[in-house]
Each structure stands twice: as C-alpha cells, then as structure tokens.
C-alpha cells in the first residue's frame, strides 16, 4: 500500500488531496481480491503504468488550463504583455545571436573528422612567431616526425579560368597530395590527388570545389577526366569536393598539386608553405611540439646559415584565431549579457509592479477558495507564456541578425560565413528563455502569493512593502551598473576606432581606384611581354579624362603582407628577423605618384630602369634610418632578393601590413628589371589609378582598355582605396555598431527602469506627499525628495558600474589601439550620460509628486 501511496505523489497535490484516499481504498480492495504473489505483482505493475500515464495527463490538463487562463489574462492587458515580450525579445535575441556566433567560431568542432587532432605547423623566427615553412624544411620535418599520421602543406593560389564564359580570376590552393587524407574528407565525385599527381613534371590535375563545379560547369557529373584551362595551362579535373568542404578558406575554389621540383628545395629562406598535420591517436599537441623542437634543433645544426634561430611549433587548427578576433567575440558576448541583465531586471520590475497591482484580485480569489499553489501556478504559467512568446520572437530576431554579424566570422577558419540555424541554437534559445522565466518570473510570483490574503484585501493595492521596494531598487541599480559597463566599453571602442582611422597610412586614400589583373604564367613569363601589357594599359589609362596618374604594384598596401626578405648590407649576411628584413614590392613607373607616396629623396622607378641596367631600388625612410642613419642613402648598395641593388630614391613609409601593424621597412623594385622567369610571384597585379573624377565613372573605359590589351585577362577585386581602408577596420566597425545598438537599448531600458520604479513609488506615496504638503512642506521639498531617490539609484549603480567597466576595459585592452583602459574622457562622458538618463527618468515622477493635491488625496482616503 505504501508503494501505491508513494505513486500517488506523481499526481498534482490538488488531485491527490481530492481522490487519493479513494484510489488507495480501491487499490487495497483489488489487492485483497487478488490471490497469489504473481497476481499481486501484476496488479502493482499495472497500477504503476496506469498512474504514470494518468498523472502525466492530469498534469497536462491542468497546465493547459492554466496556460489558457494565463493567455486570456495577458490579452486583457496588451500594454503589459507587449512590453514584457519586447523585453524578452531584446534580452534573449541579442544573446542568441551573439552566442550562436561565438559558439560557431570558438567552440564548435571544425567540419573534419576528429578535428582536435589537426595541427598547424609553423616555423618560428625571431620577431615572427608564426612563419610558413620552406619546402626544404617541410620535407625534413616529414622525414623525421613520428607524431603525425601525415603532414601536408598548402598555400594560396589564384588563376585565370578561361573558356567557361567570361574569363574569371578564381582563388584556390596549391596542396601536397596528402592534404585530403590528412583532413580525412573524401571527394564528392572522382578522387583526390595521389603521389603520382604530385611529382615534378606530372600532368596537371585539379580538384574542384562544389561551388565552382556548380557555377562554372553546371554541376556536370561528366566533368571528371575533362581538361580545363587554368592560367593557359591544361589541367584534368579528377574530383569535386563536397559542398561543406572549405579549405584553407571559404573562398577556395580549386586545389592543384604542388609538383615540387628539386630547385624548390634549395632555398630554406623561401617560406611559403602552410603545414597541417594530423596527430597520431594518443599523441598530444605538446608531445608533437617537443618533437618538432628537437627536429628544429637538429636542422639548426645541419643548416647553421639558413636555419639559425629557426624553431618549429604546432598550434591546434581551432586555435588559429587571432587574439583580436577572440576578444571581439568575447566583448560582444559580455555586451549581450549586459543587455540580458538589463532586460531581465526591467522584466522582473514589470512583473513585480503587475503583481502588486493585482494584489486585490488575487486576495479575492484566495478568499473565495483558490489554493495558493494554484495561484502560483497560474502566475508562473503567465511568465512561461511571456517567455515563450518572447523567446520565439527573439529567435526570429537572432536568425535575422546572424547574416549581419557574419562578417565577424574570421576567414582564418575553414567554416561557412553565416552561422547555421540549427538545433544547438534553438536549444540555447529555449534554455535561456526558461532560465529567464524561472529566474525572473518565480520570485515575483512567490512574492505575490505570499502577499495576497486578507491583508491584501484590507489595505488595498497601496502596499509596496519595504522588502519589495528594496528588491526593485536593487534591480534598477543592476540595470545602471550594466548600462555603465556598456557605455564605457562602447565609448572606449569608438575612441579606439577613431584612433585607428586617424592613423596616417602613408599614401593617398581618396580618389583612387584599384583593380587586379593577375597575369597568368607561363604565358607572361617573359619580362618584355609583361612590360608590354603594363605599358599599354598604363598609357591608355593615363589618357582617360580626369586620370592624373596610374601605376602597377605587386599588391596594394593592406591587402597583402608582402614578401619579407632578409637584407644584406656591406656584405654582412643577416639572419632573417623582424629587425633585419624588409618588405618587397615590384612597381611600375607612376605608382608613387598615383598612390601619393611622397618621394623624399632622389627619384622613383622610371622607364629607363630596364632589365639590362644595374638593379636599382627605392627604399622607405625607415629603411634608411635602420641602415644608414644620418647618412646620404642615394647611391648606396644592399643585397636583397638574390640581387645587389643601388638606392636611387627614398619614399615615405607606408602601413603595408595594415593600419594597426607597423610594417617592416619597404623596398620597391622596378618591374622592368625582373628577369624572365624571375620573381613571377611578385609580378605587379594591382592597377592603381588616381583620378579627379568619381572612380566608378572610369571603370567601363578601363575594362575596355584591359580587354583590348588582353581579351583573356580577367579583372577582379575592383575597389576604391577608401573601401580598402574601410575593410581594414571592418570587424572593429561592425563590433562597435553592434555595441552601440546594445548600449542604446541598454541606456533607454535603464532610463525606463528608473522611471518605472520612481513613477510607481510616487503613486504609492501619493498619500504621504499629500500629508506632507498639507502639513506645510513646499513643492520644492517634495521635488527634491524624489530627485534624491533617483540620484541615489544612479550613484549606487554608477560606482560599481565604473569599476566593472574598468575591469572590462583592461580585459579588452589589446582592442583599444592605445586608448588607455582608464580613459578619463570616456569614463566622464559615460558617467554624465548615465546621470542625464537618470535625471530624465526621475523628472516626470518628481513633477507628478509635486502636483499631488492634498485635498483630493485626503478625501479619497
């Protein structure tokens, strides 16, 4: 029988109280009538099954009824309902969007089998914590390492695809044959590379990405075995990868094997291979790292000149993100949490205010026999309904916001651009909604039920209760704290953005159009052919109306780190470190003028600097400062990129690697002096045009000129220099915009929270104000009283808020671009804004208090 009574606890208590005794009596009768242990056990089992089933149904029916009543009750007060849903939508929407993004970028496994075993392998040089591998070092590591099942290498590549409609420039990757087996992703159709494809002299083979296969070849399944033309060379398509295979970046459209020649292994300082390995099962990253360090030490011994000070290290592929990328996301998560806290505090205050206003109704229902438990259940089901409605809206908002936030997904990870809407996201939204509902719905409901009763009937609705008032004040203070943290953080990031934007890049940014014509090799292996192309294009472009000058450069500043080469001065060879290397770019005449890089001494590259003349170089001021401080640099010689160069000019420094990174000193070489089959990788690609006319007006004419110069030459990356600069600060700008929106919402909500609390307090204290006025208190005294209460709330939130904001600022210091975490201007502005908001929130309740009519109030009481 005890067993049955215990089972009855599965029912709601009201049901158990009503029918429990009788059900037990029936079970006892049935038990008495059944004979034998087997029959009794059978009865117990069937009782268990039917009680579990029926209890669930009873709970469901009660819950459904409660939800129905709650829905009706909520529909009767649409203002409250809409406000509450809006608050939940704001709080949860911000968090679902931001946390889905953060989960996608920082936590979720990469789309490869056992992604934790995938490691990037880097060389470490003094001043460069991560440098690509040279082919020779890569080959030696493969031969010696026991930690990896296999170690592959890749680099970035782009080719002209001709013969499939308009010529187009497509991004791809040169890879070692074992890359796909390291990643353990099979081809969708066809096969991937074998060792036979990846040897010197092997016929060209290519694996296509799903998107290129669809876009350029219409998803033709017969493509396997067909030849396509890449940079005028024939490649046989051997496979197509699945749609979700993105490697190394999501822009990669094809993969070709390296087909290293023996010559490629000769220079250990030519670092251009990204190494990626799969750890053997049971081998840790630390073990692999130690082994690589030992190999590096051995290589230093074997090749003391080239490998001096070169170390090797492994980094988990998932950890490839920069600290800045992580901080950007952490910052957004923190901001979203602040918004949630503020929204929830407002929601709790709203529910508390509503519960107080309903005290009389609930007291009446209690006195008419409704159980406290029933009332609590109904109040909770109201919260659940509000939460679910808000949660659903929030999920919609988050789904809509994800594409806007997707630019914060770093390109360094082989994942898609927009985080997918999936079960994880929906579960997170549901979990957060339930937490919000439980966290901020239960307490007001409990308070209401505790407060309801005969006392509620007796004193009516004007029973705020000191404890309850304290709780509401604490919530408002929490809102102020969170909004101050957001205000300061946004302020600091805005100042950081301004600071970055105000950095002088060293070149002109306005009125400049650039576009890329990446010449294919071996078609343009001969210098004369390249120069013919550059010369024709530049001559024709310079004739266009409004064009002041034009030139070609290996790559625009900011868009490419540049080739980093060791510099040898006075015959002293140097180990490559950040302090002994310079960046290399080939340029055509007219480039400095077009890009507005000032020539400080001597001259720029000219038409007369041809391949048969001694090699000349234009260097930047920092180059001169490093090697010939306070000396005349013109006419001096240095060795760079296998050749001796004579300095013919000095130009201003530019930020070649980006606005936030100091660049190595720059060396510019004349493109005409590059020998046939020389530095083809560095052949100028970006055409830079300075014009007094809007750049977009020139574009059709420029396209025509390029088409005439080489009809098979595709044009890509058409952009103004202003756009390039905007791209530099894009992730900062997006993060700042999101933060500003969050902060705006937060400050308005905090202001409304203060207003709501004070308006409520004033309405509760109308009688007191009336008596005070009747006893001779001035209106100014009453006004001051309310104002002081508001000010107290603001200050109580401001002090811890500023302290927390400082901690947050210290945490994101590396994002602040030199702005101090305790920046006085930002902190003062945030404090002032917070006080103004408080004042505005306090003003109306204070005026209402002043307008209290003592006679009317006394009469009403």
């Amino acid at each position, binding site marked *: 029988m005890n067993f049955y009574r215990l089972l009855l606890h599965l029912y709601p208590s009201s*049901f158990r109280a*009503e*029918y429990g*005794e*009788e*059900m037990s*009596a*029936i*079970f006892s*009768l049935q038990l008495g009538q059944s004979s034998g242990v087997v029959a009794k056990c059978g009865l117990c089992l*069937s*009782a268990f099954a*039917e*009680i579990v*089933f*029926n*209890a669930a*149904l*009873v709970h469901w*029916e009660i819950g459904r009824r409660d939800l129905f009543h709650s829905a009706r009750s909520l529909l009767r007060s649409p203002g409250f309902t809409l406000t509450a849903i809006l608050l939940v939508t704001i709080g949860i929407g911000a968090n679902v969007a931001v946390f889905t993004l953060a989960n996608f970028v920082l936590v979720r496994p990469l789309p490869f089998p056992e992604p934790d075993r995938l490691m990037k392998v880097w060389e470490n040089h003094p001043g460069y914590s991560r440098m690509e591998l040279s082919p020779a070092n890569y080959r030696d590591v493969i031969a010696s390492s026991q930690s990896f099942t296999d170690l592959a290498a890749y680099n970035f590549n782009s080719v002209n695809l001709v013969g499939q409609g308009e010529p187009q420039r497509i991004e791809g990757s040169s890879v070692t044959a074992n890359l796909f087996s390291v990643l353990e992703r099979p081809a969708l159709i066809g096969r991937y590379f074998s060792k036979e494809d990846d040897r010197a002299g092997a016929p060209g083979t290519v694996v296509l990405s799903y998107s290129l296969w669809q876009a350029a070849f219409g998803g033709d399944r017969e493509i396997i075995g067909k030849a396509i033309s890449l940079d005028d060379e024939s490649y046989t398509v051997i496979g197509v990868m699945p749609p979700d295979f993105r490697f190394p970046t999501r822009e990669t459209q094809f993969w070709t094997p390296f087909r290293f020649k023996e010559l490629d292994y000769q220079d250990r300082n030519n670092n251009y291979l990204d190494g990626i390995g799969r750890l053997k099962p049971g081998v840790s990253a630390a073990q692999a790292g130690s082994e690589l360090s030992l190999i590096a030490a051995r290589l230093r011994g074997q090749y003391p000149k080239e490998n001096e000070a070169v170390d090797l290290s492994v980094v988990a592929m998932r950890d490839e993100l920069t600290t800045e990328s992580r901080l950007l996301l952490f910052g957004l998560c923190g901001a979203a949490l602040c918004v949630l806290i503020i929204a929830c505090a407002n929601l709790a205050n709203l529910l508390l205010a509503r519960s107080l206003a309903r005290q009389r109704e609930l007291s009446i229902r209690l006195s008419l026999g409704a159980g406290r438990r029933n009332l609590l259940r109904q109040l909770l089901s109201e919260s659940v309904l509000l939460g679910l409605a808000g949660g659903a809206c929030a999920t919609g908002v988050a789904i809509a916001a994800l594409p806007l936030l997707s630019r914060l997904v770093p390109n360094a990870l082989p994942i898609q651009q927009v985080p997918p809407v999936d079960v994880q996201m929906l579960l997170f939204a549901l979990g957060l909604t339930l937490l919000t509902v439980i966290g901020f719905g239960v307490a007001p409901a409990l308070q209401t039920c505790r407060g309801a009763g005969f006392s509620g009937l007796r004193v009516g609705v004007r029973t705020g209760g000191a404890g309850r008032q304290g709780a509401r004040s604490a919530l408002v203070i929490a809102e102020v704290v969170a909004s101050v943290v957001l205000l300061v953080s946004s302020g600091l990031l805005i100042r950081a953005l301004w600071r970055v934007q105000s950095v002088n890049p060293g070149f002109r940014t306005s009125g400049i159009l650039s576009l890329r014509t990446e010449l294919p090799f071996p078609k343009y292996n001969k210098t004369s052919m390249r120069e013919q192309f550059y010369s024709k294009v530049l001559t024709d472009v310079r004739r266009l109306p409004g064009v002041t000058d034009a030139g070609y450069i290996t790559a625009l500043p900011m868009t490419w780190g540049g080739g980093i080469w060791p510099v040898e001065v006075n015959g002293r060879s140097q180990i490559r470190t950040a302090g002994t290397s310079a960046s290399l770019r080939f340029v055509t005449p007219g480039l400095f003028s077009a890009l507005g890089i000032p020539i400080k001494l001597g001259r720029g590259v000219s038409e007369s600097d041809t391949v048969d003349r001694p090699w000349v170089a234009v260097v930047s001021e920092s180059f001169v400062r490093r090697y010939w401080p306070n000396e005349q640099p013109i006419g001096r010689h240095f060795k760079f990129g296998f050749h001796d160069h004579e300095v013919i000019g000095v130009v201003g420094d530019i930020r070649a690697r980006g606005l936030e990174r100091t660049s190595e000193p720059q060396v510019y070489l004349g493109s005409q002096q590059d020998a046939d089959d020389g530095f083809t990788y560095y052949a100028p690609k970006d055409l830079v045009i300075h014009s007094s006319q809007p750049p977009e007006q020139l574009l059709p004419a420029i396209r025509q000129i390029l088409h005439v110069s080489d009809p098979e030459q595709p044009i890509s990356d058409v952009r103004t220099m202003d756009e390039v600069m905007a791209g530099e600060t894009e992730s900062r700008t997006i993060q700042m915009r999101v933060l500003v929106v969050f902060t705006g919402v937060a400050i308005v909500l905090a202001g409304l929270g203060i207003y709501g609390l004070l308006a409520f307090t004033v309405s509760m204290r109308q009688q007191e104000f009336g008596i005070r006025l009747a006893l001779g208190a001035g209106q100014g005294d009453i006004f001051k009283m309310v104002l002081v209460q508001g000010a107290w709330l603001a200050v109580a939130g401001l002090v811890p808020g500023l302290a927390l904001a400082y901690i947050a600022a210290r945490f994101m210091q590396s994002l602040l671009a030199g702005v101090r975490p305790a920046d006085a201007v930002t902190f003062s502005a945030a404090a002032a804004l917070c006080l103004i908001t408080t004042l505005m929130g306090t003003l109306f309740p204070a005026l209402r208090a002043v307008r209290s009519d003592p006679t009317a109030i006394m009469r009403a009481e």
Partner: protein
Amino acid sequence: MADDIKALLPLQPTTFHILLSLADEDRHGYAIILEVARRTQGELKLSAGTLYRSIQRMLEAGLIVETRTRPAPEMDDERRRYYRITPLGKAVAEAEAGRLRDLLKMARLCGVAPRTT
C-alpha cells in the same frame, strides 16, 4: 443547452460508460468500476487512475455531481464519495446514444453492420 451538449460530443468511451453506470443510481468510484465491468461483461475494466481523471473532468464539465446522500452507516465507508448524473449529463448521454444510433443506421445502410429487426 443544445450547444453545450454538442460541444461535448463525441464522448470518450470511458465517459459514456461512467454516465451509463450512473444512469440508474448514484454510485461511488469502486461501484462504477464494477458496474462498467458488469455491463461490458468484463471487457472494459477501468483503472482507478483513469476513473478519477475522467470523474474530475466530468465534474468540471457538469456531467456529474458529488452527492451528499449516503447509504446507511453500516453500509457506508466514509472514504467513499458518491456521484450522481446531472440533467446535463443525462442529456449528453442521450445525445451520444443518438449519435451512435445514427452511425449504426448508416453502417447498416452501407451493409457494414447486420440488419436486425
């Protein structure tokens, strides 16, 4: 009233059987279980859980009421509650019976039920 009845149809078989068992006299829970089993020749044996869940619903819908009239003390068990069919309950049971009759008529016309005289 007619709309109230319509809204409750079709009845769940359990509800219909409980109404039938209360049609001739007031009964307590266990008596209802026994009566339903007797009427259906043991084919439908209501469990206590199902019975009281149905009773709760029927009380709320006004199909039955708890009656204060109790048998003589020597025949009574104070834990027992007695239920009585209400006029609404009776009308709903009749409407359900009518509905089933119409269904049967239709089935006969279609030849899926035997024609009896």
